[in-house]
């Protein structure tokens, strides 16, 4: 009987899809081990949000409502997770493979003397020893990893496990972390864009590249995103040229995303770009070059000039939304 502890990250007061996916995953792991799925919430969250975790199988929640968690300090967060793991005798500690999850999982692994497997894409095929699959070589290959330590820490790749509802009691316990260190770095300033759909959370992403020929041609791209409720993204040359903000760059050295649907408009499909989006469930490519490598990675393609095709897609998208 082994318990699973997972870190339920929240933003702007609510749990987003990655946290609920992680809850679903933790619940499935708990079914495999015969233990409980226990959530750790750092920072104050409302009771209605906490009970949402119960809808994905969470039995128990440690709610560390008080504490300076807002700066997301590595030392403070990893201490909190490690202490929680010890408190609930967790055999497995799992995180979303989010910016913060990936940042603190290795420190927690060291504290718990646990093997770390980052970016797992499914449930372990075995628990004795823990054997689980992940992507390697920037998504070009798959690997099966075995963990030799008694405990293990994993980070879960986004949009791989899915949301699975199950009823859990979600009993919330207010908990104070016994020994929190102080901030390692002085926070001078924090800026947050409120209410924005983040690339890491978006189910649909509309991305465009150099084929658009300039930032002044971006309106159809933005319109398509608006109609579909999607986040916008771009290829590296576009952000290097300053046509779009750096935060929109998806690719090997930019953001790695895994939406359900990814539109690649006027993007040739260099290896480094594909590395950033290959985990998308479905890729649609629009390009006028039939030899463009993007068509090798795409599920659906339109051969044509983006300046005529994208506006036509915007109108078609509007019709689709009206009729659905």
């Amino acid at each position, binding site marked *: 009987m082994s318990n699973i502890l997972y870190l339920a990250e929240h933003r702007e007061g609510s749990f987003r899809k990655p946290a609920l996916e992680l809850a679903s995953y933790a619940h499935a792991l708990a079914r495999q081990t015969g233990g409980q799925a226990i959530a750790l919430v750092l920072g104050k969250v409302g009771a209605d949000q906490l009970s949402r975790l119960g809808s994905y199988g969470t039995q128990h929640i440690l709610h560390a409502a008080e504490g300076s968690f807002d700066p997301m300090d590595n030392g403070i967060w990893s201490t909190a997770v490690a202490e929680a793991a010890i408190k609930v005798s967790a055999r497995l500690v799992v995180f979303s493979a989010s910016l913060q999850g990936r940042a603190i999982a290795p420190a927690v692994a060291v504290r718990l003397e646990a093997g770390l497997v980052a970016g797992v894409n499914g449930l372990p095929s075995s628990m004795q020893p823990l054997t689980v699959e992940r992507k390697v070589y920037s998504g070009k290959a798959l690997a099966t990893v*075995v963990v030799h330590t008694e405990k293990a820490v994993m980070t879960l790749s986004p949009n791989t496990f899915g949301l699975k509802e199950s009823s859990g009691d979600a009993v919330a316990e207010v908990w104070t972390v016994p020994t929190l260190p102080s901030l390692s*770095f002085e926070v001078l300033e924090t800026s947050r864009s409120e209410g924005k759909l983040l690339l890491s959370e978006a189910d649909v992403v509309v991305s465009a590249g150099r084929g658009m020929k300039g930032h002044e041609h971006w309106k159809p791209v933005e319109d398509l995103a608006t109609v579909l409720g999607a986040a916008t993204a771009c290829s590296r040359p576009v952000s290097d040229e300053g046509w779009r903000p750096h935060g929109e760059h998806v690719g090997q050295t930019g953001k790695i995303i895994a939406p359900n649907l990814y539109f690649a408009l006027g993007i040739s499909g260099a290896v480094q770009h594909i590395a950033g989006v290959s985990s998308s469930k479905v890729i649609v490519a629009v390009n006028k070059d039939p030899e463009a490598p993007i068509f090798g990675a795409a599920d659906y393609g339109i051969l044509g000039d983006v300046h005529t095709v994208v506006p036509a897609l915007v109108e078609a998208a509007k019709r689709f939304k009206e009729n659905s």
Partner: protein
Amino acid sequence: MSNVPDTTTKVRFTDGNTRLDAAGIQWIINPWDELALTRALELKDAGAISAVEVINVGPALTEATLRKALAIGADKAWRIDAETADGYQVAQLLAQWLKDQAFDILLAGVESSDYNSSGVGIMLAALAGIPSVSNVSGLSIEGGQVILKREIEGGQQQLKAHGPFLAVVQKGIALEPRIPSMRGIMTARTKPLEVVPAHPVAARTAYQAFSLPQPKGSCRMVDPEQPDELFRLLHEEARVI
């Protein structure tokens, strides 16, 4: 600094798919480590720091890549002589070496392009008891103060470091990787590359087997004159909208 296969390498496995087939592989400095090195050298050029050293854990074949780092401008390279087994083993070997070193700033690229685990930098900091910060997209030194720009979900932070620290750096830390000059390539041969022995450290995880993903089916082309058809397919066939 990690030694990795060139990004355009077609990966293949051998020995019953238990290890990478290294035949014909071009080895390079891990792209994020290269950006970290570039930023360090920019700071050195500006007179803000005095020396830049690169450290790698690996077998003799990584020395060619370490020489590239020296050619780009690093002052000294170190190789901890060991076959890498997993992130924890690499971090522990680095931590052991670090005990005898003095430093102000440690930089680690966010991940290596082969294993993508984002583990070594943070594990090293945890093992060595050094403050760490991740997702650092900017590092500047103004009047002796170290200022960091850090990416967080949906935002950014500006941080000030007090004392030695390790920063895990990502895109933005430098705009383009520095290219070695002719002079750099010449002097690289005479700059120090020190090899240190490694005490054996047991890995905590092991790669059992590799496989290549199923190749994608061919792309289904849609007539540009029929954009509604695309949405019908996305809804009925792909079920993503």
